[in-house]
């Protein structure tokens, strides 16, 4: 969700390489991913280790979080072991995974440009996006945020919302309105970096941050002097991503996620990590 969109960089790179070597980009053959997973009895997922409570290193120095639990459950239902790798966001969204990992359960928003590079077989939950201010701030409503300096992640869906150009072309996307016009948008590598700037004091560098509600709440739990303002600005669907070209594997993932929705497994995991049910549109 808070991740940068597929940057021009990786596509330019791919293009440059393809042109330079006059070779077509390789595409996975049908069924290849599923064959590999079933043969090796290992499902490898990519995830961000710096994104609590979705995915992070727990105090036993193991990967843990909502995304990790969802990944484990998918692997369990396929009857294979789960392995986790942690490549950077740019590498994941560049596509052409070359079989290094099989799926990304990384809270990724299935936007149109990303769908050209990756497949999104199933949406597994929805994240509310919210504004937060410093506890000493006088701001209490979304309207008061107009004209303020707002920090968020660069190139991510929050950045797009603040710029009023957010397009999420997935099914079941809840409608939303642009309720805030920022005076200045300051972008960071990730939205949690903006928290550190807001932490310095009300208005020192930022007046507010715009980020995922669960992440803001996690920061508050860890002593950040932040306060959520107003209701969530929009809900964003988050999907499992796979490399292009394996319809069988995608169908299998879609089937498993649908079953996890139906039997309440996803709801239970959402309650465990977020304290609320984020698996259906509010």
């Amino acid at each position: 969700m808070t991740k940068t969109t597929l940057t021009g960089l990786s596509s330019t790179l791919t293009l440059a390489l393809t042109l330079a070597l006059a070779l077509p980009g390789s595409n996975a053959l049908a069924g290849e991913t599923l064959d590999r997973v079933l043969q090796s009895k290992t499902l490898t997922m990519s995830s961000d280790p710096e994104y609590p409570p979705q995915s992070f290193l727990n105090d036993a120095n193991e990967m843990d979080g909502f995304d990790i639990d969802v990944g484990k459950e998918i692997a369990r239902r396929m009857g294979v072991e789960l392995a986790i790798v942690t490549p950077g966001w740019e590498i994941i969204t560049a596509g052409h995974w070359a079989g290094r990992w099989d799926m990304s359960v990384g809270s990724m928003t299935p936007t149109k440009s990303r769908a050209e590079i990756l497949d999104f077989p199933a949406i597994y939950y929805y994240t509310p996006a919210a504004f937060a201010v410093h506890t000493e701030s006088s701001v209490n409503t979304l309207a008061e945020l107009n004209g303020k300096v707002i920090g968020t992640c660069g190139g991510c869906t929050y950045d797009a919302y603040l710029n009023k150009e957010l397009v999420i072309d997935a099914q079941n996307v809840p409608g939303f309105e642009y309720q805030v016009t920022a005076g200045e948008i300051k972008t960071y590598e990730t939205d949690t970096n903006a928290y550190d700037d807001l932490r310095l004091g009300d208005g020192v560098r930022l007046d507010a941050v715009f980020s995922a509600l669960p992440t803001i709440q996690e920061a508050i739990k860890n002593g950040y002097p932040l306060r959520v303002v107003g209701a969530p600005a929009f809900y964003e669907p988050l999907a499992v991503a796979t490399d292009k070209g394996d319809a069988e594997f995608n169908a299998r993932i879609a089937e498993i996620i649908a079953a996890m929705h139906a039997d309440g497994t996803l709801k239970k995991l959402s309650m465990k990590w977020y304290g609320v049910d984020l698996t259906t549109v509010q």
Partner: protein
Amino acid sequence: MRLRQFCPASVAEIAGVAVLLLILIWLEPGDGKTGGLLAPLLNPLFGSLGNGHEVSSARHIVTGLLLTIALWLNFATLRLLPWPLQVAAVWLELLLLFAAFVSSFDRDLGVWFESGRAGQTNLAYLISTGAFTTLYVSIISIGIACVFAMTAALGRLSRSGPAYAIATFYISFFRGTPLLLQVYLIYVGLPQLGREFALDAVPSGILALSLCYGAYLAEIFRAGIIGVPHGQHDAALALGLDRRLTFRKIILPQAMRLIVPPTGNQFIAMLKDSSLVSVMGVWELTKTAQVIGKRDFKVFEMLIAAAIIYWLISIVFELIQSRIEAYYGKGRQR
């Protein structure tokens, strides 16, 4: 131990102290952290700090003056010490200042020594996972880079057209493009030629670092080789040595004296640039610090720990470098 003679202040010194005094007063230190240190001394004169009192400019001036005198006395005393003690004392003072700077952040550095269910402190995990990876990736990379560099340097010095062209193209490309993009080219680009080129993260990182640093080192090696006076070639020729033996026994040992210091420089730079391999999911020092930090929202605290570890590793390599330098500098000692 013989104390040095106390020498009278020079004009330059008086000017320096005056500038220092002006800067310190301009900073208005009266109510800052340093002003707080002097509070027991100054409170009887100016009344206590805080309580919303406006701090008078007289207090700023007196505080600045006292700080200047303290600093000047410090240097005046240091000058009386023998040279090695001066160095040690100044290092210690600067270290203490750095420690004071870090501890003045409103941060919980205790997180370094916290341990969870794994029974390993965060600092121990940072070292065993992060520092270990950074070290072995850097050491292997600098080794391979030296091979690339020597080949490219000889190529550039060669009379063969293709060798010269390949060497200059290599050096130009890998010095002229950002390391991060080279990492992407190798990790994301190569597999598109075919699955057999889909290198794992660590080998990709080592390859990228070796290629990039090999290009920089090639120029260092070339400079070292042409820095050996031409008379050495002539003398070797006169003694009947063939070209191969001349290079190995006469030119290279003398070139090494010039090559070693900048190579040490490059190695220390590589230690830190190796953090770029984290984009492929390798948990080296910086990445591990961020991962641990993000868990408890204590990233800055863990990055300070990582910075100190980088520094300690660099110091060890500086010492190793000075040993190697001394070895190749033998011929120059009088």
